[in-house]
């Protein structure tokens, strides 16, 4: 028994360390679905999309199901705390899945928010980042995105689901952003979100990618360039879809019956980016091996002949290569190493990197890329040839 007493005391000691006063009843809290970082003059503007509790069974449905609150203060932390002056509940910031950064803030300086993002324990590292292009985060939060209840949740779902559908944007979470921000030889990117109007209803749309250099946003990639960027990183997207010109057109003298469009799918790909260094000459070698299927053929000619298949594969490789080239061209034009070539050199040739790291901004725009793309056609799905083949 005497032996038990010290153990009991040890186990009971946490009662005085933490206790009921740390308790937070569910009914005293409010869920933060997403928050937005913006600036207003010299102050920071924090906006939050807060979920209104769904009604109990048998009560009327509230509409809208959220509210958006804004608060201005010299720091985001203070702005967040000052919400309590108007809000009778404690916001659960760590529940947020999405952070929207305003274009104004991104163009000004990322250091204005990167510190709070890393220091604050209530911000998760896997929260998805977006740049609001041409709108404020608060406006994004006010948009209704059926069937989702909250645009914040919708954004997180859009970026996740599109990687297997349209397959253009690579999701960037806070951890990626911090990593790209603090690592030399790679620059951050964040997908952009815009407002669009359809039949008088406002909607949101992923459009383009914000390109950063150092602590500032310097430009953007269009969707094709963005896909090029994703194609230079294995696993960034799961599947994508693209159109090529049917190789039969022009080879055989056939009249154009419907269209010369052939739609292909990229179902998986592997890419290797390797610097080739020859004395002072640096060249990047990008080898992409992908495979996919035919998803739509608007022609009537037979496309499953061995020669035709080879032609389709070549044409597809050319289309993918074009996206990559466009991305590289844009990145070099903005002088922002978003592909992480510097990092690749640092990993494979650390000594060379030591020599060139200080001159990297000068060297990067002029580095040539040797892009080799191989595309393998797997199957034409349910049909061997075009439906209208004679």
């Amino acid at each position, binding site marked *: 028994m005497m032996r038990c007493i010290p153990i009991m005391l040890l186990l009971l000691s946490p009662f005085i360390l933490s206790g009921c006063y740390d308790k937070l009843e569910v009914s005293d809290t409010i*869920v933060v679905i997403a928050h937005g970082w913006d600036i207003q003059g010299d102050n920071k503007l924090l906006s939050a999309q807060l979920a209104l509790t*769904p009604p109990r069974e048998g009560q009327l449905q509230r509409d809208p199901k959220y509210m958006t609150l804004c608060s201005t203060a010299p720091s985001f932390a203070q702005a967040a705390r000052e919400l309590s002056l108007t809000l009778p509940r404690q916001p659960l910031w760590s529940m947020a899945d999405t952070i929207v950064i305003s274009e104004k803030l991104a163009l000004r300086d990322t250091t204005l928010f990167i510190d709070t993002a890393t220091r604050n324990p209530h911000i998760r590292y896997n929260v998805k980042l977006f740049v609001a292009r041409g709108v404020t985060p608060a406006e994004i939060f006010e948009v209704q995105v059926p069937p989702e209840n909250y645009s914040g949740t919708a954004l997180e779902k859009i970026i996740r689901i599109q990687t297997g559908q349209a397959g253009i944007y690579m999701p960037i979470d806070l951890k990626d952003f911090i990593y790209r921000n603090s690592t030399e030889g790679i620059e951050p990117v964040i997908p952009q979100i815009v407002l669009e109007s359809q039949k008088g209803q406002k909607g949101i749309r992923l459009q383009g990618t914000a390109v950063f250099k150092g602590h500032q946003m310097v430009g953007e990639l269009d969707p094709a360039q963005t896909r090029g960027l994703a194609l230079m990183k294995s696993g960034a997207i799961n599947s994508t879809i693209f159109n090529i010109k049917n190789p039969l057109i022009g080879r055989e003298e056939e009249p154009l019956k419907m269209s010369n469009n052939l739609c292909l799918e990229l179902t998986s790909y592997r890419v290797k980016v390797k610097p080739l260094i020859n004395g002072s000459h640096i060249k990047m070698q990008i080898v992409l091996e992908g495979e996919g299927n035919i998803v739509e053929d608007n022609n009537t000619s037979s496309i499953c002949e061995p020669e035709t298949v080879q032609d389709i594969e070549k044409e597809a490789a050319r289309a993918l290569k074009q996206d990559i080239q466009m991305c590289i061209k844009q990145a070099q034009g903005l002088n922002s190493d978003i592909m992480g070539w510097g990092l690749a050199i640092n990993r494979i040739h650390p000594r060379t990197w030591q020599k060139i790291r200080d001159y990297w901004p000068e060297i990067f725009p002029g580095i040539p890329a040797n892009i080799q793309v191989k595309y393998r056609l797997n199957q034409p799905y349910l049909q061997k040839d075009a439906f209208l083949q004679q």
Partner: protein
Amino acid sequence: MRYISKKKSTKSHMDAKNMVAQAISADIQVNIDSLKVLLNRCSDAVIREFTLGRESNTRCVLLYFDGISDKAEIEEHLLKRLLQELDSWDEPQEELNCLQTIKSRVLSLSQLSYINTLEEVCYHLNSGDAVLLLDGSNQGLAAGTRFWESRGIQTPENELTIQGPKDSFSETLRYNTALIRRRLKTTQLKTEILIIGRLSKTDVLLSYIEDIAPHSMVELVKERLLKIKLDGILDSGYLEEFLADSKWTIFSQVEYTERPDRACAHLLEGGVAIMVDGSPMALLAPISFPQFMISSEDYYQNFVAGSIYRLLRFLAFFAALLLPSLYVAIISYHHEMIPTTLYLTIASTREGVPFPAVIEALLLELTFELLREAGLRLPRAIGPAVSIVGALIIGDAAVKAGLVSSLMVVVVAFTGISSFVIPAYNASVIIRISRFGILIAAGLMGLPGVIMALLLMLIRMENIKSLGKPYLSPLSPINTAQLSDVLLRRPWPMSVQRPHLPGMLNRTRQKQKGGL
């Protein structure tokens, strides 16, 4: 035949007490007088006096208790034979041999024994035996005529299985030994009778398999049983606390079963089964806590199914123990652990509930226990009605009135169902009681509180031994070989050895090659 008249005894109570210790006198009148005092005011006692033989006129007295002795047998095999046979048998008998002659040549009963003291007379009478005393003999003859109305062998009421035997123990000890002996046809199955209880003189049966059960353990059990000085043993449950190694704990160190197959399986693993006359529950020891999750049905079905259902039961065990506590801890302290959508659902059910989550959980758990207890104790006809009223009406009304959240009702109901999955009733009692402790710790400290309460439980369990067997074995001390038959159900061909018990003599369950 006549019943004793209820005339007032002239001798005091103290005399009766001293009288019991007396030896049987050669003078039958002394014996009759003493016994009439002892059996005074016992309306069911029968004292039949008669004489033997036409010439010798030896006075005899036959005693038994009506109702617990087989009257037909007594009349047929005792009285009739004594009166008829000896009547025509007029050779002068030497007094001393007379009883022996009767035993060996006259009475056609299989169980006959000599008795010497009035105490023995009383014990046999109370057990249902008939006692014959002869004038001139300082010994008596006890005839085994025990017979009483019993329930007979019925199907188990508490430990139900789909597959497997459907008989269960009953209140009659002899039936119970028969049920075991029928399954284990070996003379190594020992069934020792110990008479415990100062007044009740209850037959307590200690059974074990001599070659398997550790000798020291059997001796220990016997020693602990014989030390009991209680006045009456009415159920095997009386013995548990006398047998337990650690007494001040809620952790039951024995297992109860009404299934003979379960008792036999326990005997085959080297344990002892203790049965009490008048109780349909056999008490099995030693036991370890993980064994409470084992149902005998696991061994009657395919091992894959048995293993899956056993895992499910372990899952149910943790749910029954921890679910309300985890729920309360997480929604009161660790909101970040809940996915947003789930949190919103929880928030919507908790909107407007006036109590903190922990109070709400305690209230509901308490209500659930009340309903369960009420359902148990109520007459069978009302029982189901109460549980329906309780579950449906009170639960639904409480949610509608906004007193409790519907999710908490779901949690408590799920917990309740999980606790019913555990096959051993006394284990589910342990879990139910521990649950309240853990719940309070969760309400006070959140998840660290839950962990601490669990640690306290584990430390206590670690300190307990059931007849020398560690209470958490084979989890602690770890025994991987046995673990495969506790967490999962090992296929029979692979069960070569019995589970280990300290001092076990024979661990081979299955001879691999040759041998017996």
